[in-house]
């Protein structure tokens, strides 16, 4: 009789052992699973993760000593042959090797410029400032504020041109300005699935707009149907991420960028990648991400350029390159992480500063806005 009882007891204990082990997801297991969702390139046997990551170097930096009106650069945009840099003290434009600064005296809404986008249809430059939205067209600035145009708030964190529309993200809601009708449409918790109207990032895909909503995760807006849906961290708690790949890593989102079918989401708690079906989370302890504190993100082709407070990281979702600098010298390092293989390359000179706030990439050029100047890098052969 006792022998008959022994096996059920062991079975119960064994089942308990298996169940108790289940919840604890190991980083290694997660890394293997992402391969299933990787994009396939023209060469069918080659995945995005196997395509070589671009490496940038030969950094040249500019600050208040050699061209910028101030040291702190919030954003940068490559516009053909010229480069636009938003600083705390005005808009700096590099053209034909010379810097020129534009301020409120020239007509800007405010000297603090946090976001820049260029309308590919018209060539107009749209500047999100601390005191309104400025449109720079044919050499003149036209300003939009809460008082004169019904914009959601004067402090603009992000601006994105999408066809005839210009989208802005503000602490008072997201706004869509129709350049044809010259009217604003405002999106807040009243008419979109946000807890509050605090929006800090906006980007466009072919058929959708993605809004990074503080405390509300990502708000997806389908242009054709004008319908919203939201993506939040399913665990519902601010102090933890219960499961790493179950949704956006945190509800406090700070930016979003879409490219080649992938949405990348920045937070101050880590990075998220969404391929339309699966979410994947990245933290500094389980990936090559320089830091969980992400100021800004820009996706270009298959690569995400991630501006963190401890360097610039780039990734294709699997491989990582991080650019950092040494505060005490002009040297820095480039850290390459390919699976378990980690390599460090010395760079001299390096990025202007580790605290990276903005980035733009075009062709073989990369520009990075930092806490202490802006840096230009070249694609290394």
């Amino acid at each position, binding site marked *: 009789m006792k022998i008959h009882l022994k096996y059920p007891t062991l079975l119960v204990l064994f089942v*308990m052992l298996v169940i108790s082990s289940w919840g604890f997801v190991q980083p290694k297991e997660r890394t293997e699973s992402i391969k299933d969702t990787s994009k396939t390139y023209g060469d069918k046997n080659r995945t995005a993760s196997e395509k070589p990551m671009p490496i940038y170097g030969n950094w040249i930096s500019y600050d208040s000593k050699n061209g910028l009106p101030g040291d702190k650069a919030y954003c940068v945009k490559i516009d053909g042959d010229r480069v636009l840099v938003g600083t705390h003290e005005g808009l700096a434009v590099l053209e034909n090797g010379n810097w020129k600064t534009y301020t409120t005296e020239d007509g800007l809404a405010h000297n603090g410029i946090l976001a820049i986008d260029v309308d590919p249809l018209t060539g107009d430059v749209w500047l999100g400032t601390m005191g309104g939205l400025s449109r720079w067209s044919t050499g003149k600035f036209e300003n939009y504020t*809460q008082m004169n145009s019904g914009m959601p708030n004067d402090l603009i*964190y992000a601006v994105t041109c999408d066809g005839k529309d210009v989208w802005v993200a503000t602490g008072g809601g997201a706004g869509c300005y129709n350049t044809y009708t010259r009217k604003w449409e405002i999106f807040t918790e009243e008419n979109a699935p946000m807890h509050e109207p605090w929006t800090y990032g906006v980007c466009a895909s072919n058929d959708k707009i993605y809004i990074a909503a503080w405390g509300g995760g990502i708000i997806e807006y389908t242009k054709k149907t004008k319908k919203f849906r939201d993506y939040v961290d399913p665990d519902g708690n601010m102090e933890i991420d219960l499961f790493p790949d179950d949704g956006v890593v945190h509800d406090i989102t700070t930016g979003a960028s879409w490219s080649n079918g992938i949405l990348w989401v920045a937070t101050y708690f880590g990075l998220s990648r969404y391929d339309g079906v699966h979410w994947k989370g990245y933290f500094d302890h389980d990936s090559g991400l320089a830091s969980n504190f992400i100021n800004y993100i820009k996706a270009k082709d298959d690569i995400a350029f991630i501006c963190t407070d401890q360097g610039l990281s780039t990734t294709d979702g699997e491989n990582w390159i991080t650019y950092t600098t040494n505060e005490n010298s002009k040297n820095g390092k480039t850290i390459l992480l390919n699976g378990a293989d980690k390599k460090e390359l010395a760079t001299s000179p390096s990025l202007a500063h580790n605290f990276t706030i903005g980035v733009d990439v075009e062709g073989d050029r990369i520009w990075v806005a930092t806490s202490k100047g802006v840096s230009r890098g070249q694609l290394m052969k």
Partner: protein
Amino acid sequence: MIRRNDCVIETIFLLLVLFCTTLNGQEKKTMYGNTSEEMFPYHKFQKAYKYHFIEPVQFYGAGREKQPPKDLTEVRIGFLGPLEGSPIVSLGQQMLNGSKLAIEQANDQGGYNNLPFKLMVHNDVGLWGAAANEVVRMDEEKVWAWLGSIDDIVSHVALRATLKMEIMMVNTGDPDPTFTETNIPWVIRVIGDDRQSGYALASYIFDTMKHDRVAVIRSNERYGRVGIMEYSGVAVRKGHPMRIEERFNMGETDFTMQLENIKKINPDAILIWGNAKESALILKQIRSMGMKQPVYASDRTVSQEFLEIAGDAAEGLVSTCPYNPEADNPKLKGFQKAYTQRFGMQPDVFAAHAFDGMNLIIKAIKKEGLNRVLIRDVLTDLKTFQGYEGVTGKIILDGSWNDIGKIFMAKVKNGKFEYSPVPNQVPEGQGNKGQHGGQ
């Protein structure tokens, strides 16, 4: 023999099970929110993959090398609060008074290197997201740090703006737990939040008073929605989920519909979460409807306004208070005397905490000089001012720079609030030390 072997095998399995539950465990202790193991989300079911707020986020940006202008004639400190056009103007005025008193006392002692401190006052109510625009104005005014505000909506919007402007924010009035759960290294909060209040109320209601079926009526805006969250989470974890959650709007005066719904389920106790005025009216109406249950409330009821409106109905109400205004603390007595002399009224909780918060800003400026980043560094280092003895008691910040110092129970007896320690409170500085698994 067979029984003995069974025991050995079972013990081995049990040890294996216990080992597996800590396999991926992190050794570092969380520094967060005075949250005991029992109160941590999902603690009974699942270790989290990632725990936040284990280490305070540092600020790695530039700016520490910046020298102050040489032509300064005053040292500007910003203030943001509800001063007009808001239902909580009375709280904002007290917060402003507390700040003013700290500034005036500092100036009486020579200011900063003989430069007077000057308060740059901003109202936080206005066009949508007005707080963001006000922080921009403070940046233009070149304030070195600023204090504010009370309303969650204002504080959150201002926090994101202050990160961009890189101006240190000291909050002394917003109880929203999520406010410091943002990982932004440019803010400290020196007042207990609704997490502490929720934990204390839940412990008192379920452990001390042994209630089981509790009904909740809360304000239908962010203060009520977010404020009740921590209480609600703990109530569930203690096995006593809310039996009903009714809502009311600010300015509402008739709560018959909500209270009829509550009356129908005959709860053991009722918890009100709202501002003083509406809470007092609800309490009066509860009693006028013949409901005799014990009533508990959020800490905004701990005010003269509440006692005056509620009258006799207030008797027996239990709430929490972020400090003990009757503590035998010479600093507090001195502050109360000076405040009453200066403003002709008794200081409330917002005045006392603003006085402490503004003094921290002044001390940080005196210690580090006129550099925004260095002022931030010293206020957030969790060393220099950790355990600072203010008029509200000892200020202890956790890893998210949230005040986890002592709070108190407040019970109305003979028409006034009496204060007592919170039941089962984790000893100061030893809270939030639960070990959690995952990374």
